[in-house]
């Protein structure tokens, strides 16, 4: 009817078209988080005349980085641009390796509070060794784009539910499928290590304390349960191995959960333990030694105090406490800002992570920068979110610094990447030039000129 009316003219049609277009844009902005993240475009690129902060070696002034077939093909001051390369003028710009956040639930917790349907990070039950983050990550989570446009290109996404929470995945923040994102599909086994706590749940008047002796007993019981799980898994694997070499033995029934623990029990992959206070960290160190594991501490507030045992057992720390308050009233006001510097001094291998659900992973540079204002050198602050996490995650052969042959995850900025006022100008992941758009830029565009 409307189409046939006399009202219809070109102007009206245009207005209608615009209305329909902006309405669809609005609908897109209001959707459930499936942003259909864009994957950029491949090509041969040369960023010319920039300051290259390689992280692994000396910073190169007025240098060139060539990106080809997804890799860093050349880095240096005297590099010739290959024929057919797209050239980006790097004058006044800096190039950094993409940042790596080594402890998040990114992609598994779109809206943590009040929308349980969007949360896949915590499986129920206490023994979830076979739960794999790579099967729970939503490649189209809006957190992916928001994190990467601030220079974070790789994260470890970790299950969090139960005593044995499941297996964490290292992913690049690019890809339409989980497999396209994967860097290390099954990196580490997350264990919520029993900690000593006098918290006895909520009751009349708020938090209820339990007797300290009771708390010790509770922790010991939980630790014993954890020990039983590991011992059972060890026995299971021994039985499987025995059967493999002697088929006359009875065939041991397969248990998915113990099967999943095999690479971790064998020490082929690391087990990650949540622990903050010195006593709990030392308990982890003893547990790691007892079961001959490859251990990583997640959290690590007082890791520097347990440096001896951590070093002895080759345990590194994914530190997640920059945006946390000191626990005790008499802790130094800056104790959690200064902890990375203390770990560095004590020779503990560490990296800095947001420990965030996903939405605030974008703040990773400021976590590192704050450690940089409380004792850590600026160089080490930068390493703590690039090369150090790459080393801890076992991917430093591919990521974490600007070296020939590494994956081209690069951030081109107009200043120090750890500074909050710095802008990302270009972003490459897997050598693809990425759009700098996100749910936020789209909403900004939709409303910035509303009168």
């Amino acid at each position, binding site marked *: 009817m409307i189409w046939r009316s006399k009202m219809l003219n070109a102007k009206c049609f245009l207005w209608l078209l615009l209305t329909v277009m902006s309405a669809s844009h609005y609908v897109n902005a209001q959707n459930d988080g499936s942003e259909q993240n864009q994957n950029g475009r491949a090509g041969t690129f040369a960023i010319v005349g920039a300051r290259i902060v390689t992280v692994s070696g000396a910073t190169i002034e007025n240098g060139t980085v060539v990106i080809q077939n997804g890799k860093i093909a050349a880095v240096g001051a005297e590099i010739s641009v290959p024929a057919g390369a797209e050239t980006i003028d790097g004058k006044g710009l800096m190039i950094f390796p993409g940042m790596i956040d080594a402890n998040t639930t990114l992609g598994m917790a779109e809206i943590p509070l009040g929308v349980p349907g969007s949360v896949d990070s915590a499986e129920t039950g206490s023994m979830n060794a076979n739960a794999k983050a790579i099967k729970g990550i939503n490649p189209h989570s809006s957190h992916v784009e928001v994190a990467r446009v601030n220079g974070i290109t790789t994260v470890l996404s970790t299950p969090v539910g139960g005593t044995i929470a499941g297996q964490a995945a290292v992913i690049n923040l690019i890809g339409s499928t989980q497999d396209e994102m994967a860097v290390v599909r099954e990196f580490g086994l997350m264990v919520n290590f029993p900690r000593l706590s*006098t918290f006895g749940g909520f009751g009349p008047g708020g938090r209820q304390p339990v007797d300290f*002796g009771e708390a010790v007993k509770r922790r010991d019981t939980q630790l014993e349960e954890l020990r039983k799980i590991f011992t059972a898994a060890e026995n299971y694997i021994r039985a499987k191995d025995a059967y493999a070499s002697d088929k006359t033995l009875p065939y041991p029934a397969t248990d998915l959960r113990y099967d999943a623990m095999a690479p971790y029990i064998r020490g082929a992959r690391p087990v990650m333990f949540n622990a903050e206070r010195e006593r709990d960290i030392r308990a982890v160190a003893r547990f790691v030694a007892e079961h001959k594991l490859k251990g990583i501490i997640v959290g690590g507030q007082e890791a520097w105090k347990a440096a001896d045992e951590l070093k002895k057992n080759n345990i590194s720390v994914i530190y997640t406490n920059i945006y*946390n308050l000191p626990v005790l009233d008499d802790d130094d006001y800056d104790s959690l800002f200064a902890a990375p510097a203390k770990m560095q001094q004590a020779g503990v291998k560490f990296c800095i992570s947001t420990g965030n659900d996903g939405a605030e992973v974008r703040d990773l540079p400021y976590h590192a920068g704050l450690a940089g204002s409380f004792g850590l050198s600026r160089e080490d602050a930068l390493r703590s979110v690039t090369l150090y996490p790459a080393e801890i995650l076992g991917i430093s052969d591919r990521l974490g610094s600007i070296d020939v042959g590494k994956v081209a995850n690069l951030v081109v900025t107009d200043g120090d990447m750890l500074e909050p006022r710095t802008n990302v100008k270009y972003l490459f992941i897997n050598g693809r030039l990425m759009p700098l758009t996100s749910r936020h830029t789209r*909403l900004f565009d939709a409303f910035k000129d509303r009168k």
Partner: protein
Amino acid sequence: MRKSLAILVLMVISMISPALVAAQSQTAVLIKNATVMTAVRGTLENTDILIQNGKITKIGKNLNAPVGAQVIDASGKYVTPGIIDCHSHSMLDSINEGTYSVTSMTRTRDVINPTDITIYRALAGGVTTANLLHGSANSIGGQNTVVKFKWGHAVEDYPIADAPPGIKFAMGENPKGTNSGGRNAVPRYPRTRMGVIETMRDAFLRARDYKQAWADFKSGKTKIQPRKDLELEPLVEVIEGKRLVHAHDYRSDEALNLMLLADEFGFKIATLQHGLEAYKIAPEIAKRGTGVSIFTDSWSYKLEAYDAIPYNAYILWKNGVVVSINSDSDERMRRLNLDAAKVEKYGGVPEEDALKMITINPAKQLGIDKRTGSIEVGKDGDVVIWTGHPFSVYSRVETTIVEGEVLFDRSKDAQMRLDVAKEREALEKLDVNKADKAGGPPTRVPTEKRLADRDEAEYGDGGKR
């Protein structure tokens, strides 16, 4: 040893009393040779600031130190006004009176605790003033208190006497109570946004009737004196424009509905608190002269926060709205300077306007801009000395001064650590701290620190944001 730790912890906590912080009682402080970011009149290089009897008396070059003045060499350093946090629950021993949905009779000033260590930590992050708000569990919450962080002082020194009174309102998921589990799971009206706005309308209709009843009594029209109503009195003050409304809201529709309700009853909302979607209705907000106090970039932690964008500050600023950046968190409070820095990046708010968002703008929103929020002669001596530009992540607070008193100083803090360590060592040797098996007294159960430092309705995820 382990058991004695409990007692030790208790004793050490009691040691960190405000008395340990040596309050500077000198009447004059002269800060020499700083880069001074005034927040209102640009940045002044190589400039001195003289603070006498709590007030800024001189700003200039080569000022002479009055006799007895404490002189601070700030060469190579930056000075800003003390940061003002327009949304905080620091110092409060309780935050939400959650039983009714209208609790306008309650007052945060009845529960402020001057020994809360978060005060000292906030000072160490450059915060000198805070708006201590009731929580957001109620459509109409309690009365707020605007305080200076006068660490070491008695409780009565904290509230700013001439700050206009205010009250907390809340819209959306929190007053609906739909995110609260566990102990807060008892359903309470309202349960929807429809119910929240009607709860407010009902309260204001009752307040209007109450006002009329008093007017009738005072004019002699009626003979029976109305009963004094502590719930409605503050709402009458709101209608009369004598009490500022700080309204927690997330979605643009609920914020607009509240402003329309205020229009209906003839008052103005002083601030939209959080206003995560305020950018969607910036012209409507600007038209009413309502301020907005935001997080720079928190988002996605609940559904009503899903459309929050870091460009919120820019769009509001461009529309002429007075914007402040708050923390709503004792943790975030320590790095508000970095949250202000971010708004330069997201959209391009100029440096001084970004600084205003944590200084003079919250002062305006709280009605205390005549006394604090900028570095100008005649204002309170609330200033922060930074090791570098306050918007750099590598800068630290060196010294924080409140009304001329040095209440945080990094070098003094270092000395205090040594003192605490010494005292701890001495305490550990006392008989009373021996383990019971080693002849000490029976082990006492340590009390967990109260968890009142944040609005739990806001941080259902354990504050890990």
